[in-house]
């Protein structure tokens, strides 16, 4: 479950009804459809209050009521808000061209991610250009330690942040996920030297990822760009050199577009 906002507006400076409305949106985001009673039970908020909040949210098109069942779901305005978030995201905006040409060049899927707490949020995803059915991963959230995007980012953050990330929940996603902080720390050291992070079936069995960090105008990591695909194609005998070169080039180019100076655009 996503992080809960303050329980019931009991913090100074928060407004209870806004807090409650936000919690209703979150709970609707994790279920297909919910009725007033279900929301009331889950959030421990009186039914009349839930009803009033839902009516208000409905007027703003943030939720909508299913005419048949009378249950509520998220509304169309949520998609517009989500899209605005993506449109206003500088790294995503600048990555569109780089990600597209990288996918075309290497014939694999490309992802762009940013750190959101201890997870990588996918803000852009270009499908593998082979006409196969693929599912858009924009909005997906991947634990940082299990993907190359997260490791590429973590390798270049200040020591205090790195230590905090290493103290996070390092649960395994596969039998190959690195869960030992000391091993991860050593891996990050290596990545900071190489400028490229590799992940070998640590997030999904059968899948690998090669990522390069992206730096902003201050020279701080802003996110990362990666190629992701079947392990046998990405790491045929270790990381395929052509892929590593292409990912590194995209990371450098994108960093330059973000205003990173020559020195900052390491890797």
């Amino acid at each position, binding site marked *: 479950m996503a992080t809960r906002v303050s329980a019931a507006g009991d913090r100074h400076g928060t407004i209870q009804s806004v807090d409650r409305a936000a919690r209703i949106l979150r709970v609707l*985001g994790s279920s297909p459809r919910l009725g007033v009673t279900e929301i009331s039970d889950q959030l421990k908020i009186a039914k009349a209050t839930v009803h009033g909040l839902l009516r208000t949210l409905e007027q703003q098109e943030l939720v909508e009521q299913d005419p048949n069942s009378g249950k509520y779901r998220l509304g169309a305005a949520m998609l517009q808000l989500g899209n605005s978030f993506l449109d206003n995201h500088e790294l995503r905006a600048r990555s569109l061209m780089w990600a597209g040409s990288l996918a075309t060049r290497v014939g694999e899927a490309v992802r762009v991610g940013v750190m959101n707490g201890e997870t990588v949020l996918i803000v852009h995803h270009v499908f593998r250009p082979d006409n196969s*059915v693929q*599912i858009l991963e924009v909005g997906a959230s991947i634990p940082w330690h299990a993907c190359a995007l997260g490791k590429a980012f973590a390798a270049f953050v200040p020591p205090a942040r790195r230590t905090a990330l290493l103290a996070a929940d390092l649960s395994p*996603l596969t*039998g190959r996920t690195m869960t030992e902080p000391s091993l991860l720390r050593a891996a990050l050291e290596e990545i900071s030297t190489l400028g490229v992070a590799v992940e070998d079936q640590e997030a999904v069995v*059968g*899948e690998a990822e090669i990522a390069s960090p992206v730096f902003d105008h201050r020279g701080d990591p802003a996110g990362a760009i990666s190629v992701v695909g*079947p392990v046998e194609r990405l790491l045929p005998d270790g990381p395929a050199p052509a892929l590593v070169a292409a990912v590194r080039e995209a990371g450098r180019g994108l960093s330059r577009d973000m205003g990173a100076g020559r020195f900052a655009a390491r890797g």
Partner: protein
Amino acid sequence: MDGWCHRVSRPTTRRGGVGSPALGAFLVDAEFVRRWIVDAASRIEEERDFLTQLDAAIGDADHGVNMHRGFTAAVATLQSSPDGSPGSLLQEVGTTLVYRVGGAAGPLFGTGFRQIGATLSEADPPDGEALLSALRAGLAGIQALGAAAPGDKTMVDAWEPAVSAFERTLRAGGSVVEGARSAADAANAGVEATLPMQARKGRASYLGSRSIGHQDPGATSTALIFGALERAVR
């Protein structure tokens, strides 16, 4: 959603002849392996689009197609190896699945069948107890590769209860036929139990709480395989 589960829990054909193999008379042989894999392949073919539809909701929309390709190849492998021991045949099936299914399902199901085959190869005699050990070894292989525990919304949620039910039935003095039936039922129940779960492994876990309310495709395939096993032991 209820209908989805029922499609899996009601196999289209029941192999006839509830003849009664005497208790303890069951031995894994090459014919059993063929019946099992051919039946599983045909069930997966029947449910191919359904499996893909499940996967489209929380995965990569390729599970049905991939499993169908892999099991079709596995049947071809069995046809081209007329003489193998049951253990070696199942190992070949596993190897074929690893290379032909692709995605995460290939290595996971492939490892499962390779472990089953390897365990049966060393079993003497390859009786019901040996089949139980082999199925458990398959589960262990899958868990080592995927690090999934029951409740993570994966194939383990069907495979683990199936093996446990098989074991309980044998321990209670039941036959292999009864054990396999209880395993198939437990696998189906396991599939239904994945619906309210939030995925903690695999691509579905990227979706966080959005995975809730969807039936897991890997668990569904597992239930098809245990349904085929039930018919193959009769």
